[in-house]
């Protein structure tokens, strides 16, 4: 068996390639954390900015609702713009000259006097500042509404509690680990799968199509190594690259998460749980056969291609095929069942979600493992078969 000799050589070869190192180490180590850090920092900054922003408001009909108008005037971080053309207010908001307009109808006082609903129109731009403008304006209106309801109840000598018929006491029996696991657990294998695929892609292309292009395939085919040894040696390198890239990506993410000072304790607890040996090994048990599956597919396609360029164009669409089920797995409401347990990639995502949440069904888990190992075995078998075909390796 020459597998080990071929594995050692191919590993040395790809580790000396700058492009592989970029894809395998630099990218996952920096890209995922950089993305998460930048996105969350920008989001937090935007929210803070929107909260602290001085809102520019215009009030139409202040003579009908002086109290409400006064509420706005006396609120912090609000500037009232006195005069505006009523028929142009939508343009003013669109052009961000003002943030919102509150319009009170002339029947405001009459309606309130008759214990009826008075209509208030709020114009705003929903796409701005994550809806914070709308929230801040409505908060002031709600406070005034609460005050009016209190007044009405007092006038009618009724207890304010009469307004509410029920008092719902929500008792959520799911643990914080389960909640966070369900919400974010699928994200973890998603990272594993995407980065694993990315890490496997370049070595896969290089060891198949690259070898053909350089003319070194004949060198190795005329050596005493069997085709099985050659393809398995190459496959193990591609698989190792996939797994190493996933690990590096997760390591990078972990480091990035550590940079955030205000992470809730529950999330930190989930991270600690995920990093516990048991959960980690179970997730790896899912990720390794899944990586083996797509490593064998990438290598098969690469062996088939006449050139590196052709291999790239064949393998690139696979990205979408891999990403699509991984994304579906992160969506809420998609659960692991006897059908989804058989769908590759999606099953990894869903099973990992349940694993992190700590609610895994052993039968479904066995089904997921079974299907993944079967697919991995099948794809490796196919890859070996494919490499043995003259029509594939000497396609020219």
């Amino acid at each position, binding site marked *: 068996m020459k597998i080990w000799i071929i594995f050692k050589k191919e590993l040395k070869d790809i580790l000396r390639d700058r492009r592989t190192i970029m894809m395998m180490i630099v990218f996952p180590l920096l890209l995922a954390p950089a993305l998460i850090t930048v996105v969350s920092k920008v989001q937090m900054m935007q929210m803070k900015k929107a909260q602290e922003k001085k809102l520019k408001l215009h009030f139409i009909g202040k003579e009908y609702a002086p109290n409400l108008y006064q509420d706005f005037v006396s609120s912090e971080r609000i500037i009232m713009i006195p005069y505006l053309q009523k028929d142009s207010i939508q343009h003013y908001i669109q052009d961000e000259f003002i943030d919102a307009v509150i319009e009170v109808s002339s029947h405001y006082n009459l309606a309130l006097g008759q214990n009826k609903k008075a209509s208030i129109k709020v114009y705003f731009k929903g796409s701005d500042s994550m809806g914070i403008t709308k929230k801040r304006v409505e908060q002031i209106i709600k406070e005034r509404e609460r005050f009016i309801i209190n007044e009405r109840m007092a006038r009618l000598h009724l207890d304010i509690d009469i307004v509410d018929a029920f008092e719902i006491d929500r008792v959520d029996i799911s643990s914080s680990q389960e909640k966070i696991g369900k919400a974010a657990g699928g994200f973890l294998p998603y990272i594993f799968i995407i980065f694993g695929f990315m890490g496997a892609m370049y070595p896969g292309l290089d060891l198949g199509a690259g070898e053909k292009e350089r003319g070194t395939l004949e060198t190795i*085919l005329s*050596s005493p190594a069997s085709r099985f040894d050659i393809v398995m040696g190459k496959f193990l390198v591609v698989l190792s690259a996939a797994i190493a890239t996933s690990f590096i990506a997760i390591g990078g993410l972990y480091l990035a998460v550590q940079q955030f000072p205000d992470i809730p304790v529950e999330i930190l607890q989930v991270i600690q749980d995920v990093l516990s040996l048991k959960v980690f090994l179970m997730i790896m048990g899912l990720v390794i056969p899944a990586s083996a599956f797509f490593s064998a597919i990438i290598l098969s396609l690469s062996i088939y291609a006449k050139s590196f360029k052709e291999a790239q164009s064949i393998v690139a669409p696979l990205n979408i095929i891999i990403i699509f089920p991984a994304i579906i797995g992160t969506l809420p409401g998609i659960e692991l069942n006897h059908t989804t347990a058989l769908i590759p990639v999606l099953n990894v995502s869903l099973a990992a979600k349940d694993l992190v949440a700590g609610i895994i069904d052993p039968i479904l888990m066995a089904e997921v493992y079974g299907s993944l190992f079967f697919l991995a075995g099948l794809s490796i078998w196919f890859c070996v078969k494919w490499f043995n075909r003259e029509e594939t390796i000497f396609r020219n």
Partner: protein
Amino acid sequence: MIEIKSLSKEFKLTKQHRRELGESFTDKKSICAVNDISFSCKPGQIFGLIGPNGAGKTTTLRMVATMLKPTHGSISVCGHDTVHANQQVRKKIGFMTGQTALYDRLTPNEMVQYMAELHGMKKDLFFQRRQSLFDLLDMHDFADRRIARLSTGMKQKTSIARTIIHDPEVMIFDEPTSGLDVMTSRAIMNLIRSCKDDGKTVLFSTHRMGEINQVCDHLAIIYNGELYFNGSLNVFKEEMTQPTFEDEFIFRVEGK
């Protein structure tokens, strides 16, 4: 020793192939690259296989090197059948093409060691053999430099070293000088001669008649997958009716 008997090789044609090959191939299901050829190469002799591009030389050599399986006929290398004992055959051969076929990111040292390991050479024997080859080819100065950084000549020396590191009984050269400069071509021709002197069986393909005249004892002319001559160089010269080798070659393949 190489024995080739009634060897044929057909390649199945896919729709894409038929489209690419043009109208004359529209109804063909397969293409015959080598058609019923027989010859033998003996130890201590250089056997030249000459033919134009697409004649079937590379296909024949790839079948001898076990990379392709014959459709009909058989090949025996040092008494081993290339289909049923392919691994035994590969242990006996060294295969070299015009492309240096080296791994750019390895050093000559690593490249040679890789091939030695694949041939299951013992460490002591490998070190000894490497030393003598590196001395002979004057490779010590660049033995630890990455192959990508080497000149064509250095690469060709590395390619020679990796081909003969396991001291094969049979050497197969597939157009080894194609695309090389005069100096490097000469080094390759010298290697081929030294293989003969060492008593090895040498099978050598080329499309240059001059090279056949320089080194070969026997030759076979292959054209469109068929043999047009198979015999010693002396017999070929005696039978010549044309003034030059090239003219004789064209006369034979076109006149048949």
